[in-house]
């Protein structure tokens, strides 16, 4: 049975769910080092907390994030992907990439969230007028 390695690329703690069930109570962020990995099994038939062949819903809640978690969909095509192989998901804000174990991006899901904009050059601080 294969595994899906989920990589938290941020310094923020994340909460993951796969197909409606948590795969960890929470996972720490990286502190400037490599991404922090957690694994979830890849199985043949749908099961909460595990990835399965076919369609999968995956959510990632950044613990500093307002609103609901980012939701992603990934399809493990049984005609092209093996339940015995390992895969990786790199998680970003609003965006996630599914890679095979050799580092090829197979699918992406979501829309990247850019950093918050900086204030304009002529911005004035709020205060009494």
């Amino acid at each position, binding site marked *: 049975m294969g595994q899906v390695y989920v990589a*938290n690329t941020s310094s923020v703690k994340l909460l993951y769910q796969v197909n409606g069930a948590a795969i960890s109570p929470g996972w720490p962020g990286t502190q400037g080092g490599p991404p922090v990995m957690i694994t979830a099994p890849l199985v043949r038939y749908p099961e909460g907390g595990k990835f399965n062949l076919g369609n999968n819903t995956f959510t990632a809640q950044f613990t500093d994030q307002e609103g609901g978690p980012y939701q992603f969909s990934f399809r493990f095509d049984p005609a092209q992907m093996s339940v015995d192989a390992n895969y990786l998901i790199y998680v970003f804000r609003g965006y996630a990439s599914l890679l095979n174990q050799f580092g090829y991006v197979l699918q992406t899901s979501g829309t990247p969230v850019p950093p918050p904009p900086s204030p304009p050059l002529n911005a004035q601080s709020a205060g009494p007028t």
Partner: protein
Amino acid sequence: MAGKVTVFNCFNEPVTNLSVAGYSAAATIAGWADGTVTGVPKYTPSSTTVPRAKYAGSSAVFAIGDNAVKVPWDSFTGSITVTVPSSVPGTGPISLDQDLMLYVGANQAFLTTQFGYVIGTFTVVGALGGVQVDTEAGGAEPLSVNAS
């Protein structure tokens, strides 16, 4: 002081002579971890750091604007144009002093902040000794995009 870009090698093969803007940035970057070292999960990418700068100079730096990056793996050499946004207030969200992360896969690369915000996604163009190869095909498995 200007920040740095940590370049992660997400491919299984080592990188030999990474170059940025035509200058050598690292002699080697190992491939991802093979899981034999305690405390380092398998597939954890290896990395090197490259300084940031306002302008390109006579050494390997990531300057504001487009940066030509060459990633020579054992199988092929990946070429990426990595665009670092301006840091002018009101036009760019990224301070020159901010550290960034560049995750380099075999066919795509992602430039992010430490907080998980995505600054840019870039195609990795592969070449075998000057002959371009189709890294988009992802080996035996096709690349597809699922919008959520």
